[in-house]
């Protein structure tokens, strides 16, 4: 590992779904807006939005987008761990499934009583997030 790269891993309940040894820049979608993390950043813990994480290494012209559903990121010793409920690489997302989920959530929101609203809203956000990640029209 060179001095200007950091190690990223994305951890979900189903295990480590993504890992990259040599990232030069990772862009996180934090509660306070987007934030880039490069090697030798000071240790930080930050909570994340339902959104995308971009892992970039320009020298290797490597770029990977990972869609996550919230959670938090922890960075120390050039190790970045992103801990989230669920995460998938944007290229692996099944858009049709996400669209179905979106419809379902919208129907729930329209019909449901108050008890369900929060969950339906979260589901809707997840679905929309997935679709946006793929189609790119944010």
């Amino acid at each position, binding site marked *: 590992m060179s001095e200007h790269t950091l190690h990223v891993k994305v951890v979900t*309940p189903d295990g480590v779904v993504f890992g990259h040894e040599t990232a030069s820049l990772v862009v996180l979608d934090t509660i306070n807006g987007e934030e880039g993390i490069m090697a030798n950043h000071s240790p930080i813990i930050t909570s994340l939005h339902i959104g995308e994480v971009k892992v970039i290494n320009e020298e290797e012209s490597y770029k990977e987008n990972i869609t996550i559903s919230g*959670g938090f990121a922890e960075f120390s010793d050039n190790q970045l761990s992103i801990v989230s409920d*669920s995460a998938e690489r944007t290229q692996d997302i099944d858009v049709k499934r996400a669209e179905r989920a979106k419809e379902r959530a919208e129907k729930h929101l329209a019909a449901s009583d108050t008890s369900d609203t929060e969950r339906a809203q979260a589901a809707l956000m997840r679905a929309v997030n997935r679709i946006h990640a793929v189609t790119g029209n944010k």
Partner: protein
Amino acid sequence: MAASLQDIQRRIASTKKTRQITSAMQMVSTAKLSQIQRHGGSYTVYADALHDVVAHLATAHINNVSGTLLEQRHVSKVGFLVLSSDRGLVGGYNSTLLKELMARINERQLTPEQVVILAVGGNGADFFKKRGFDVAYEYRGVSDVPTFTEVREIVKTVTTMYDNEVFDELIVGYQHFVSRISNEVHLEKMLPVSAENLEESKDDNKYTADYEMEPSAEQILGVVLPQYAESLVYGAIIDAKTAEHAASANAMSSATDNAKEIIDSLGLQYNRARQGAITTEITEITGGMAALD
């Protein structure tokens, strides 16, 4: 005599069929067991990461906990999350769990009004309904190797109910998987998240750096704690399922052994009866000859 010979033969045949079924079920359970053990391994990575961060945050900011899951409320109702199996054929898996739970409820002298039951698995739900407890939530049909997406609904419901003060303390009762041949009933208090639990493993906490917090430690704690609580419940569900598969594999293996014993003893009976029949025939023939002479 001939009729009983046929009877024994029929019993042998049917026991053999039973044995075939139980041994197949044993193999299926064993396969599921190793599958879920693999899955459990990858979950541990996630749980550890969460635990370490929560422990780090909580020990540093333990004084400022009101409004979070760390806050100790006055307990007027106790929630019990019961992780039992849907099916039978798992030996003492459900009965020992339910017995321990009842013992705990009696020990704390809780009336049914002070108890809220959340049942995952049909056995537990039916048991507590029959005894007049308030079963506030019921979920059947957890799959053999539950994924987080699948149990998210259960987990979210439980934490939401706690937030809405349906109960003020959550105890999760499940069979903990010890080894392939033994389980252990665990009754764990998971909510509110207790500081002792977190500090237990402080020594091997790898997150010792002096962190910047964004936005603030309290806000991060507010996000991470629910996620941590969810991961605890999910972990318990995985553990319980692992134990269930082990219990089922065990029950089926002893059933197969029993069937084998029965077949052996029936075989002995059959041979004895056959001998008896032959002896009677010979006596009859010689008796007939003696009469002719």
